[in-house]
């Protein structure tokens, strides 16, 4: 088995220690950091993402896989910077104002990182202006909003309005998701993309960053 496949396999199984060791030995044997990332770590994570989308695995498996992947990414990071490897794109993400739930948001973040995106995590209870200002200041192409409660989902409409007001709607896309969110709601408030699950959200964000 090639070392890339072995890394992917261990990410999928959530074996953090094995991933660390394998990534280190791949680096020591002179393989390019970019290949270790793209052909090893991200392949494993994407496979988990697909299986999550199909309901074959659940939140815990995704989280342990992401933890294993991040252990590998930590080793590669300085080398990727040195090699001037660019992220696929940059997005910011957060749970909307009044809502403290972050499990769904964290899943999306991990899936996005698994696709090679740089993700600015704003946490929970994020004010509309914070989304918009962060996206402008940090040059994010996409704002991702999460909400679990029907009582807080209207905050998303506010994010869209603030982005319009700031005059950045043409260059910053807005993605939304969460238990009560629907395609219909997305259209109604004028957001760009609704995703039903974390893996689809990551795919959509990559598309938007192209």
């Amino acid at each position, binding site marked *: 088995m090639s070392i890339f496949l072995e890394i992917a396999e261990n990410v999928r199984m959530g074996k953090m220690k094995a991933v660390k060791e394998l990534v280190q030995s791949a680096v020591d044997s002179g393989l390019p950091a970019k290949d270790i990332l793209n052909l090893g770590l991200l392949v494993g994570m994407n496979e988990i993402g697909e299986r999550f989308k199909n*309901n074959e*695995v*659940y939140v*815990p498996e995704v989280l342990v896989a992401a933890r294993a992947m991040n252990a590998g990414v930590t080793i590669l990071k300085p080398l990727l910077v040195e090699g001037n490897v660019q992220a696929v794109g940059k997005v910011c993400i957060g749970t909307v104002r009044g809502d403290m*739930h972050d*499990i769904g948001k964290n899943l999306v973040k991990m899936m996005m990182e698994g696709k090679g995106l740089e993700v600015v995590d704003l946490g929970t209870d994020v004010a509309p202006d914070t989304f918009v200002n962060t996206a402008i200041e940090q040059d994010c192409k996409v704002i991702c909003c999460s909400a679990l409660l*029907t009582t807080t989902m209207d905050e998303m409409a506010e994010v869209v309005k603030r982005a319009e007001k700031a005059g950045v709607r043409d260059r910053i896309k807005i993605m939304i998701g969460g238990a009560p969110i*629907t395609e*219909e709601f997305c259209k109604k408030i004028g957001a760009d993309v609704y995703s039903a699950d974390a893996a689809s959200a990551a795919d959509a964000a990559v598309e938007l960053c192209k």
Partner: protein
Amino acid sequence: MHKVIFNGETLFAEPGCLLSDVLIDAGKSVEHPCGGMGLCRKCRVIVDGKEALSCRYHVNSDIVVTVGERADIVSETGADETGKLSENNCFVLDIGTTMLALALVSLDTKSVVSVKTAVNPQRVFGADVISRIDYCRRNGVKPLQTPLVAEINKLISEFCIGKNIPLFVAGNTTMLHLLFGVDCSSIGVSPYTPVFIDTKTASADELGLIGVTEAASLPGISSFVGADIVAGINYVEMPKNGKYSFLIDLGTNAEIALISDGQVICTSAAAGPCFEGAGIECGMSASDGAVYSFSDGKAKTINDAPAKGLCGTGLVDAVAYLLEKELVDDSGYMESERYFITDSVFISQSDIRQYQLAKSAVYSAVMTLMQVADISFDDIDKVFISGGFSAKINVSSAVKTGLLPCAFADNCVPVNNSSLLGAIKFVTQGNDLSGIINNSEYVDLSLNKAFSDLFIENMMF
């Protein structure tokens, strides 16, 4: 105006308006558990011979709508009824998100004369408190208060007392806001602040109640641990033997209190609607034809009616069965997409996922409270399970599926409607509730790091 012929009755609808709005305005009991989001598919009706969701259907012509008969939800309160009225009486009411229970209580004999129950008419706006809060935020408190008061008046009139007597009310914080006509919007967004939490009284006239002199609510602890839990704690009592008891109310919000002599640590965990049968493909409330028990491959239904769906306790049993037969593995993966437990009732992979979220929320909340109190399972005396769900729950299935810790297998006690029973006890024995209120601590799980780690960990079986 378009004509909507609903089960033979003619209603009128503005062109383009939602069928659900027409039905709700006309007081029809088509339920919308997900709050009209088009997600749960429980508001299915037949429009001109075709199936449609009432919350998604826009009326653009004259239509004929039919819907099957809704059976009553079976609800056991657990009160001993004497049937004997005396000179001095009062009413005690529990307003649950799902059910109302009204007891006529004799203050002379300190006993319950009789109890009547009804479905909370607000269910047409959604199954859980969040959907009610959301409706209140969008439409004001009146549309929620009016049908509630009307239903309470109907229950009161069934007792034929002939004179006005006092009414004492327990219920969760949101329900009490809605009874008193107080806007509950602030409960729905962080930091979840209620407008009132202490005892509140109002005259019958103010609220539109008929047959009572005034209404007085019991006090609560927080937005999500209300007077219903305070009453429940009053019912099960603080243990005097140096040990701890749990009071667990299993609903859409699982309210959990860890009680010792002189201290209450409580929380509320978002378990989701699966214990009420919502969010589950074949889910239904506990009414005729609901599978409430499933063991050795045999399904028992409520009133032995033909199986129509699964209620909460049936779901717990069915998941336990699938795990035992290894048709679902530890991670929650199911070999086939669906597993039929009767000819027509099945469990799907996504149902299992819903259950994993719910059971982990409850289990992890229990563990978090024990961590906060710094105690072990040896310190636990009794575990009281309350709620409409409690009487028929199979504790071994609950333990097998990881809804409750194994250590609770032998000390679970079902207490039915502990809110109603505790409020009755308060009225008849004149207990002081301040010992509960003043010594209670609320743990906010959404800010608790230990909880979120446990929540992920315990999702596996």
